[in-house]
């Protein structure tokens, strides 16, 4: 059978961007936001929240044109996390994907999510640029003192306790804290040279 003869079976072209493509472009922003909001949340995971947001949008695509997808997705993730925090499920049980409650059409599926880029998104993007500078600075820190950079990454980046890192390095936990503080000071200097003020 020739390809054209299959045409009737194929789906009609959709209107607006594909959610998969939109996700591919903005997943970094969504993850960073979710990780940041859920930093002290022991119940919810960023990938579950983002998965629910995207599943909801697949089911209920925005009914109106979205002017700024990044802002739209940021707001959807913020709304979802805030809803989770409000929910009884958050207080009493761990969220897993099979227990995920459907998102309210008006709030997450689409067109009621505000997509005003001024609403915190600009700040978020600015923060991301700073983090990119920090990643460059960490390379310089690594060259300055490998162990200090390692300790800082383990303690501040991965939130491992100073005792855990101390056991691994065979030093005392107070020594680890000293190294971590020294690394932070050097990082501030490096960032200052890159015109990032803390």
């Amino acid at each position, binding site marked *: 059978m020739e*390809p054209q003869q299959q045409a009737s*079976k194929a789906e009609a072209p959709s209107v607006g961007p594909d959610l998969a493509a939109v*996700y591919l472009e903005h997943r970094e922003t969504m*993850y960073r936001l979710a990780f*940041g909001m859920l930093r002290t949340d022991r119940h919810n995971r960023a990938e579950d929240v983002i998965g629910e947001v995207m599943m909801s949008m697949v089911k209920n695509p925005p009914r109106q044109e979205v002017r700024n997808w990044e802002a739209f997705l940021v707001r959807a993730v913020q709304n979802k996390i805030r809803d989770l925090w409000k929910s009884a499920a958050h207080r009493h049980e761990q969220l897993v994907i099979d227990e995920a409650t459907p998102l309210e059409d008006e709030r997450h599926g689409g067109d009621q999510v505000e997509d005003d880029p001024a609403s915190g998104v600009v700040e978020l993007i600015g923060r991301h640029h700073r983090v990119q500078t920090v990643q460059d600075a960490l390379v310089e820190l690594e060259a300055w003192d490998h162990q200090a950079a390692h300790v800082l990454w383990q303690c*501040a*980046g991965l939130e491992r306790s100073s005792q855990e890192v101390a056991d691994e390095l065979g030093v005392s936990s107070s020594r680890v804290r000293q190294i971590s503080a020294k690394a932070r000071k050097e990082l501030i200097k490096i960032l200052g040279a890159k015109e990032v003020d803390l």
Partner: protein
Amino acid sequence: MNEETDRLLEQLLEEPPGPRREQMLMRLDGDQREQIRALLDAGDLVWEAAHTAPPLEEDPVAAMLGVVPDPGFQLDAAALVRACKASSVKPTALAARLSARGWQVDTTDVFRWQTRAAPDVPPALIKAIAEEVRIDPDRLVAKAEPKPNTLRAVAEDVAATPRFRDLAQRFAQIQRMSPTMAVSALQSRMLATVHRGDEPDKEQMLASVEELVRALEANQGQ
């Protein structure tokens, strides 16, 4: 600094941002507080640098949406040429239509896809291409041999089970995609999920897929 301040500083360095940390900071005098806050801010930026999106192939959401390239679901160059010809869609037009749908694609990409294997094209993009050239996505796919991999082998064992096929069928209906693409998406998701913890066995993989499909069905039913 006295001993008490030293202890407070040590506690502060391990305290995540929040009201508790702010309360601890308030116990320091003004100059000290600003110095320590700068140290904490530096640590927070390091934390943010450590918490970014997972690599695409380990991202379960990307797998679910079909944006993880799949060696078992690759674009067939010859089939694409035939489909473009049959639908009278030129490479420039195809690139423009895909760009309008949000894909980062230009004409050189389309020419490349038409001349050689394109393992970087994910299933969701194959679906979009198929819609634009008005053909069933499965007809644009060249089956490729995946590299030997224990985990992939388990996933393939799972994919061969009747229970998985039933789940893939249900997933295809919910997501409005072809059964072949549904199999690919669910396999990618199984593999992506594995990176989040211990390697699951066949039963665990099936259970995880079943949970996903049920959640989607429940979502759809609302």
